[in-house]
């Protein structure tokens, strides 16, 4: 078994990570880093609870353990830079500045979510903050990110793209194709491999012949480097340097952040592929605890300061949960909206077909099906639970909590199958 033998620290050591000690940045920066990492951790913990209470549907992929990788890397971005990510991206959105309220509301499937309730956990998006999405297809965002970098380059801007993927994505065809094109066209993009040791439940050494992932892009012309993804300062330093190369020299780079996710692949993961000891070993290298220890030992922040940051994070997440609870579900009348950009187009043709309706239905341009289609849509939505349609009508009335604390979300959560 892959999990036998090597401990987390040993694995990290074998991986060639030497725990470089970077000087602490200024107090404000340290405070900000800690604040962001705590916000992400508390958000994820609370999201897990909300999933167990069936407030959140579908899959839920938590990033607990990866906070240093996320915050270290995103702190290296300039305001104009773009960030793209995988489906494990709540932390990325939060780190980029999307309000926890809007992230939580998205997980709840509510209209105030950052994707209007259409994307869910795997498809967060915040154009204003240049966070161009979480993507549900492993490796699917890589070509997109190179395309965004192409647009930045084409427009002769100084903007760069930080394109994140998991270790599993390095086995996709889009990985090699995108590395080749990024290098061939000298695109301002940095690829960050968040190596959390597992592609879903398959460990790195069982899914990749080359386990030093920083080597996998080199043959395609994209130099790779490695950072300790449990060390926020190391991640920041290495990603900053890579972004400088990509931006100033137009040489795309790859960085492998060696990290670990404490939780399962998703909430539906029984974690039979690894030992509790392995998880415990990595937890000893916890990115938040370690950074907290450094700043308090240094005297920059006191324990009270840190506790205050933590309680502020928890309060903010409570507000996010309350906001998400109170936000209405999307209006059923908007079911067909925004599939297409309609401005300036021919409105009289059939764009979308609603076969449920006995009447003609032309989608968003004309709603000839009218009341009948609305009734049928509501009849369908009623399967989501009795309270869905009623809540939609009474916007800020909290729902009655008809499920006990900590009970399973539904009678049976879908097993995470081959979907991702």
């Amino acid at each position, binding site marked *: 078994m892959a999990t036998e033998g090597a401990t987390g620290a040993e694995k990290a050591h074998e991986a060639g990570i030497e725990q470089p000690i970077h000087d602490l940045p200024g107090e404000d920066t340290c405070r900000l880093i800690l604040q962001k990492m705590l916000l992400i951790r508390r958000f994820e913990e609370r999201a897990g609870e909300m999933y167990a209470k069936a407030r959140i549907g579908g899959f839920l992929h938590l990033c607990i353990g990866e906070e240093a990788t996320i915050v270290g890397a995103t702190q290296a971005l300039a305001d104009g830079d773009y960030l793209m990510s995988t489906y494990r991206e709540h932390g990325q959105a939060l780190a980029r500045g999307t309000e926890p309220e809007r992230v939580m509301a998205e997980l709840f499937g509510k209209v105030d979510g950052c994707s209007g309730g259409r994307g869910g956990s795997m498809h967060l998006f915040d154009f204003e903050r240049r966070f161009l999405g979480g993507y549900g*297809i492993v490796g699917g965002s*890589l*070509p*997109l990110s*190179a*395309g965004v970098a*192409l647009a930045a380059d084409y*427009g002769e801007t100084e903007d760069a793209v930080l394109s994140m993927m998991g270790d599993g994505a390095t086995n996709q065809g889009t990985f090699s194709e995108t590395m080749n094109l990024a290098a061939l066209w000298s695109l301002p993009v940095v690829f960050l491999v968040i190596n959390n040791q597992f592609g879903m439940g398959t460990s790195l050494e069982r899914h990749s012949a080359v386990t030093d992932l920083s080597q996998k892009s080199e043959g395609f012309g994209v130099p790779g480097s490695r950072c300790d993804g449990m060390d926020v300062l190391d991640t920041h330093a290495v990603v900053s340097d890579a972004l400088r190369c990509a931006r100033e020299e137009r040489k795309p780079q790859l960085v492998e952040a060696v990290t670990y996710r404490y939780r399962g692949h998703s909430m539906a993961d029984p974690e039979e592929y690894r030992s509790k000891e392995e998880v415990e070993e990595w937890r000893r290298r916890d990115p938040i605890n370690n950074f907290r220890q450094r700043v308090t030992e240094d005297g920059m922040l006191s324990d009270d300061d840190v506790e205050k940051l933590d309680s502020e994070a928890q309060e903010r997440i409570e507000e996010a949960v309350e906001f998400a609870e109170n936000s209405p579900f999307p209006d059923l009348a908007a079911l067909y909206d*925004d599939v297409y*950009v309609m401005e300036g187009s021919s409105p009289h043709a059939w764009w979308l077909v609603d076969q449920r309706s006995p009447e003609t239905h032309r989608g968003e341009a004309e709603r000839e099906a009218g009341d009948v289609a609305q009734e049928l849509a509501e009849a369908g939505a009623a399967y989501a639970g009795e309270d869905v349609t009623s809540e939609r009508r009474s916007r800020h009335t909290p729902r009655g909590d008809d499920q006990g604390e900590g009970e399973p979300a539904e009678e049976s959560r879908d097993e995470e199958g081959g979907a991702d």
Partner: protein
Amino acid sequence: MAEVRYREALNQALREEMQADESVFIMGEDVGVFQGAFKVTAGLLEEFGEKRVRDTPISENTIVGMGVGAAMGGLRPVVEIMTINFSLLAMDQIVNSAASIRYMFNAQVKVPLVIRMPQGGGHQLGPTHSHSLEAWFLHVPGLLVAVPSTPADAKGLLKAAIRDDNPVIFIEHEALYGKKGEVPENGEPLRFGEAAVRREGDDVTIVGVSRMAATALQAAETLAAEHEVEADVIDPRTLRPLDLDTILESVRKTNRAVIVEEGWPHGGVGANFAALIQEQAFDYLDAPVARVTGADIPMPYSKPLEQAAFPHEEHVVQAALATFRDL
């Protein structure tokens, strides 16, 4: 009006739109130095340079995905896929990204991307280069699908596609590239969702898709000359959005419909049209909606087999006459 070939009409559309808008650029396999596998992009590298006419490696999924990303980043990419079978390598990016991004991200971004590709049999290229797959794309909400059959439509619809803010699957036909036709010189784009009535008649409605619009027209002439049957011939020109009203109006007049396509019958364009027609005009039909499709097989190489595998004029004539049989 000038008489130009289908490929030249496409070339004119690309050139004019690139001249008009700096954000329009082309990328694809052999579109630059080689001037395009079917010479549609001839001369464009010379005129616009390597920044705007980009030869790519053979990486279809990534080329399309980069097109989507560039479109999200504010450009108007025109991606060429060498033949429609190769688009299957890019189906992930076409469906999971191009078609879905606007909806799943709540309209925060748009994807003004054109993906051009030729389809169709007749050149003995066997089962990996000759299929007709418009039904695959028609299936997907979020995509627009154009199937121009004349040089004028090729130019007018490609210009419209490039200016449209939605992802467009632009399906050309290999057998049409050399066909000549009159093309207006005003350079105006056509509108998506407006069918062309190629011929008017009161007896039967024939809808032909892509190259089959031309085959349908030939069949209609034969029906008139030899069988005293006058057919309405409709070329839908775009499958999404679909000008169903024009088709329905015709069916309500003729009470008979024949759908002609080169693609496969199961889940095909004809299957879809037949369903829509019977849903919307059942009471007007005097016969079941007829379909003429490609054979339900991978496209064979050998010439007689290949010719037998896609519809010709006589198949359409027979299908139209069959709608007049006593039931």
